[in-house]
């Protein structure tokens, strides 16, 4: 009998293979360029959802401000792309050539200091990871060390999302204001607006997402993953077993923040702009809904949930734009009331058992005990 699960058990490997096949083979084969790019955009939200599974599903920390981290990544990438698009050559009609056009419109004559590092691509990539990690660390330290949790934490993160939006819109000269950062062209000289670039970026995005899922699977399978569950259930018991609960909460919040930022950066690359409409309260809550629909305890469910809700959103909002938000709210209520474990719960309760039974029927007479043991050792996901 094996007691130690290696970080990928057979079921996880199968699930990873299925989702990889779907995203890397089936979608590219079936969808045209426009739709594929759309799926790519949805998948950038899945980064956030995967982070939320760890942070909220496992750790019990509900953040309603993940849009902030998505934006930190997205804006970081957009700043790099914008600087590249704003060469002196391209902007010679401006009164100050060589700075982004919206700065020129706002009578700014010099590139602000915090834009300077974004001239360099390696530095940009580094900052896309470090800046959200730093912000999450500061927010997390301020709150978790003071034992702020549950609803209070959710409300504060929501307020932070609102503040971030107001800040971005208000500081038009530095951020591009309500329009965001637009007219992005090349990544290190490579034109990202062409169909072939979009096709390649889709695959980069999927591979990055699958790596993030792999990392999340590793965290989940480590003792840290079990401590997250333990913390969610009996915070005091964990504390009085010698763990600093706040440090674990800060860690998982930072990790979710970095995941979200990677999604944001990929969003900018694939969609070609970044704007405050992806930062605030509504997108942040939408991301929580994607996670809930997928099943907040399921890393793979996060991907399916994000895709399902966004497909529904696109098709419904094309025909009934006003009704969509009502539909989204209704969906969230339905999930919470009827399927608290989301799509993953439906799968585990109704689809997986018949499959397991079908697979186990044949070797039944030789290994009844083994099957029983497997059933009792496999934890409910």
């Amino acid at each position, binding site marked *: 009998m094996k*007691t*130690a699960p290696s970080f990928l058990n057979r079921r996880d490997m199968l699930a990873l293979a299925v989702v990889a096949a779907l995203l890397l083979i089936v979608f590219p084969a079936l969808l045209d360029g426009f739709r594929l790019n759309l799926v790519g955009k949805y998948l950038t939200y899945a980064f956030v959802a995967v982070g939320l599974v760890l942070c909220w599903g496992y750790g019990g920390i509900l953040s309603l401000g993940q849009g902030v981290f998505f934006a930190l990544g997205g804006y970081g990438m957009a700043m790099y792309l914008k600087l590249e698009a704003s060469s002196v050559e391209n902007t010679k009609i401006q009164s100050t050539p060589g700075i982004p056009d919206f700065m020129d419109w706002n009578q700014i004559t010099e590139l602000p200091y915090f834009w300077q590092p974004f001239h360099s691509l390696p530095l940009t990539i580094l900052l896309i990871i470090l800046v959200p990690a730093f912000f999450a660390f500061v927010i997390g330290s301020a709150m978790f060390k003071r034992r702020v949790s549950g609803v209070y934490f959710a409300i504060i993160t929501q307020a932070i999302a609102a503040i971030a939006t107001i800040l971005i819109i208000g500081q038009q000269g530095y951020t591009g204001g309500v329009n965001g950062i637009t007219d992005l062209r090349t990544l290190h000289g490579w034109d990202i607006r062409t169909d072939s670039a979009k096709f390649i970026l889709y695959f980069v995005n999927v591979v990055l997402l699958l790596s993030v899922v792999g990392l999340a699977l590793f*965290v989940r399978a*480590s*003792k*840290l993953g*079990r*401590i997250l*569950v*333990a913390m969610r*259930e*009996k915070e*005091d*018991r*964990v*504390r*009085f*077993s*010698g*763990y*600093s*609960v706040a*440090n*674990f909460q800060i*860690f998982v919040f930072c990790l979710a923040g970095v995941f979200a930022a990677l999604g944001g950066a990929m969003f900018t690359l694939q969609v070609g702009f970044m704007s405050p409409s992806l930062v605030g309260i509504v997108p942040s809550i939408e991301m929580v809904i994607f996670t809930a629909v997928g099943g907040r305890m399921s890393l793979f469910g996060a991907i399916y949930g994000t895709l399902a809700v966004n497909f529904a959103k696109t098709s419904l909002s094309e025909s009934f734009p006003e009704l969509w938000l009502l539909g989204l709210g209704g969906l969230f209520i339905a999930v919470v009331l009827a399927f608290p474990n989301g799509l993953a719960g439906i799968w585990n309760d109704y689809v997986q058992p018949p499959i397991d039974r079908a697979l186990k029927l044949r070797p039944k007479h030789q290994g009844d005990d083994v099957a029983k043991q497997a059933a*009792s*050792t496999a*934890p*409910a996901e």
Partner: protein
Amino acid sequence: MTTIGTPPKDYLLAVEALTVSFDGFKAVNDLSFYVDENEIRVIIGPNGAGKTTVLDLICGKTKATAGSIRFRGAELTKMSESQIVLSGVGRKFQTPSIYDDLTIFENLEISYPKGRSVWGALTFKRDQAVRDRVEEVSEIIFLKDKLHERAAFLSHGQKQWLEIGMLLIQDPELLMLDEPVAGMSVSERIKTAELLNTIIKNRSVLVIEHDMKFVEDIAHKVTVLHQGKILSEGSMQKVKTDPKVVEVYLGH
């Protein structure tokens, strides 16, 4: 009558002039007592006497308003909860405090004293030493055949044992137990007494308990609390015959 002059250094736990007030109400009032190495001390007293609060103060769950708690000479009142645990104090809660969604194995493993930092937990390896120790403890707490079941499916008594097992694996020098046999059936009580007798070896134990039979069985010394103060202290025989104790506690 309760303080014994200046305490010599070799007490394991020295609680002195400990006071905590909740909005003016002094749940523990100028309390002093000393626990020796390998001593089993039972705290008894009527409801609201401040027994659980004393344990809360020692393990850092509640911060003291005044006074000091020294454990091996280190001041506990200034430490965080996890630091107190690391210095060697373990606490069992009154209601079984275990992780329902994890298996018995995982419950015990989390209390294994290794990999308690974030990085340590990420890189923690479930090696043979861990497995052996978990199995050993699970046998002591009568749960060996349930190692891979979810803790949610255990009975109340078994959950209490599991939490005792979690403390055992943590291996504290001072073990604090809050009503370990409350809510147990007679047969479970007997097994628990047996269990406690094996785990209290080579460590000091501070127990809160109402079951007088059980107290007589295990206590070296008894402290009776009443309204946040010590009413009487000494051997079970002495305490039992103390007229003040009979009046406020044993009389009912």
